[in-house]
């Protein structure tokens, strides 16, 4: 797409929709808008990056399934929740550090993902998209209910005794930092897997050209199954790092899910680096929106940006870089 064209259209929409937040600003009378000091700004920046990284990690599995199979996995958040509670329970029962149990959560979720694929997605992979959406929604209901019944809805916290680092007056919470590091490692590992292994290439090939894939002998249904499994495993990884910095509830997955949708579309369907770019965009909007806008107004901004990107660049910020 011609960029000039896109951006001029974008400006037009931007000017049309920006009328709304400026009115909101008018109501924002209680908190005067003054720029805080550099230390505070740096603090915001750190939080934005940390939050963005985690959002990126949360979106990885979703974008993978979306990109390869063209399925919107509504159960993504619920899969995260399963991993959170699995990790918590395993850690409490065994007394082993939760960091060491993360692979366990990933493996469990991979198996769960493969099971879900075989039971629900495989039979209707060629059906209309809305049917797949409803089916994953059904899975969401089932998983969330089971977790709720087993663990109750009390918020639970993993007692890790993690604190924070202080660097030049800026606090870096350990939990989030580790989560971010794990996220980056996960990104790198998944990226390497997809780039450097035959299976990874097969997955990318299938995402690129499902027809072409079968002509070179790629068993497409098998790749789908694997993709769903890996997508679920990535949800598991994301879920497993959340208890490092946050108290968990069975409904926590829903909160992450909506953000993950936004991130996936912002970054571009199926694009891994895009997921992190999208995550960072949302992280920045959320942190700075909370800092300078009233209430949860920043959410409005997130959805405006989301709609804007959908309209002028539906392939996402990093997706489908065209050569034209």
């Amino acid at each position, binding site marked *: 797409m011609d960029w000039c064209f896109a951006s001029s259209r974008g400006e037009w929409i931007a000017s049309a929709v920006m009328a709304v937040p400026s009115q909101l600003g008018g109501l924002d009378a209680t908190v005067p808008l003054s720029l805080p000091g550099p230390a505070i700004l740096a603090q915001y920046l750190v*939080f934005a990056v940390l939050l963005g990284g985690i959002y990126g990690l949360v979106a990885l599995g979703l974008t993978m399934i979306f990109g390869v199979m063209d399925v919107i996995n509504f159960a993504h958040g619920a899969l995260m929740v399963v991993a959170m509670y699995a990790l918590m329970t395993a850690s409490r029962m065994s007394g082993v550090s939760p960091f060491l149990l993360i692979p366990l959560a990933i493996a469990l979720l991979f198996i769960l993902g493969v099971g879900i694929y075989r039971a629900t997605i495989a039979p209707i992979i060629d059906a209309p998209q809305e049917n797949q959406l409803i089916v994953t929604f059904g899975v969401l209901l089932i998983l969330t209910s089971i977790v709720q019944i087993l663990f109750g809805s009390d*918020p639970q916290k993993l007692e890790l005794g993690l604190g*924070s680092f202080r660097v030049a007056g800026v606090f870096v919470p350990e939990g*989030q930092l580790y989560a971010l590091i794990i996220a980056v490692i996960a990104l790198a590992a998944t990226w390497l897997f997809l780039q450097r292994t035959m299976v990874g290439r097969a997955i990318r090939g299938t995402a690129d050209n499902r027809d072409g894939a079968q002509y070179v002998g790629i068993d497409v249904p098998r790749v789908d199954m694997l993709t769903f499994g890996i997508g679920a495993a990535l949800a598991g990884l994301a879920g497993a790092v959340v208890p490092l910095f946050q*108290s968990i509830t069975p409904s*926590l997955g829903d909160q992450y899910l909506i953000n993950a949708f936004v991130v996936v579309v912002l970054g571009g369907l199926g694009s891994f680096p895009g997921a992190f770019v999208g995550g960072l965009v949302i992280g920045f909007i959320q*942190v700075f929106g909370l800092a300078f806008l009233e209430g*949860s107004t920043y*959410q409005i901004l997130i959805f405006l940006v989301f709609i804007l990107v959908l309209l002028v660049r539906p392939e996402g910020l990093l997706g489908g870089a065209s050569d034209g």
Partner: protein
Amino acid sequence: MQDQQTDRFSRRDFVKYSGVTGVAGVLAGCTGSGGDDSGAGDGGSGESGDSDESSGSTETESAVDEVVIGSNHPLSGSLANTGVRMDQAVQLAVMMKNEQGGIESLGGAQLRTISGDNQGEQELGGEVAQELIDEGANVLTGCYSSPVTSAATRTAEQEGIPLVISVSVANSILQDTNLNYAYRPQPSARRMGIDHARLLPNIVRDAGQEIQTAGLFYIDISFGQSIRDTLREELPANDVEIVAEEAIGFGDTADTQVTNFRDADPDAVIATSYRAETIELLNAMDNQDYRPPILAGCSNAAMNDVSALEQMGETAEGGFGTNFALDPTSSRAGDVRTRFEEEFDSGFDANVAMTYASTEVIIAAIEEAGSADPDDINDVLGSITVEDHIAAMPPITFTENGENENSLAPLHQVQDLRDRVVAPEKFAETDPSL
């Protein structure tokens, strides 16, 4: 307790699977309500009840042997953790009354609880109320989440069954409506804000400390916003300026909000949120090595809940909270708390205490009415004064619109990771430490 539950479910299952509407329960309800308007909303119950004569006749004869309280709480869904304990509070109050010999004025009639799960869904508020009424509830209590409570009041009003709200803070449930069958012993959101804005500055200033500025931390839903709105009015009226307002959504962390507080540096941070968000707030404060001179919660159940306090740890120590609470000066209240913790092995927090107190109001009304007839009970509720209850508030008595005239949200302080009432003096169990 366990037996009772099994019994309850098995009877209900029979209802479900056989398809017989209401069976015995309906008849109990019919007789109880004098049969005047119970048929209005439900064409089926009468006929099917008639067809089941054996159970019907026994129930009719023994109607005064038993009074049924319907407990309508979220037993599943995201509010279930509190909802289940609130339901247990109702059961405990009933259990203890029965142990003392039942309703005296009815010749020792036993009380029975039937429970319904509204899942915290507005659609189910009225539905579950109706089911409970159909199953024979003579009086109702519930429902925690305000839209659910609101839906339940409608059904209660239609069916002419009194509803004594256990916990539900939204002002408008009673204040914007014209209900004849709904009562709320607990302070409304507005009442809590007013009490908090008055009691907190007073106690701080009495101790010779300053409180000129405050930052509000609230969950950005109805509950948080309505307390925020009251505090916006009432804090300045008590010479406290609001210098920061920070919202939090479900499932968010509170890092940015705490940075904002650090930046604004208020004398007090007042949190109005659920347990998870309050834990996030204190966690973020720990992470940023920040603790406001005064930390307070307004209508914040986390500040009254032992397990939550333990999760929050030292940062919570010394924090203040305004919420309905157990009367620390009453030894009976202490007994109830101990009994509850033994019986159900879970925390007796403010919501649970308030539910217990509401059930006490119901029991007192039944006792005073000497009748299981909902209208009789309702008449009594309109004029009752309940002095003997476990909540830290003066005698409960209702105004025209069903609000408790003397509702009070006392101020308590976290000391040794337990919540202790420190104001007003009448209920104070200990002195504040500042």
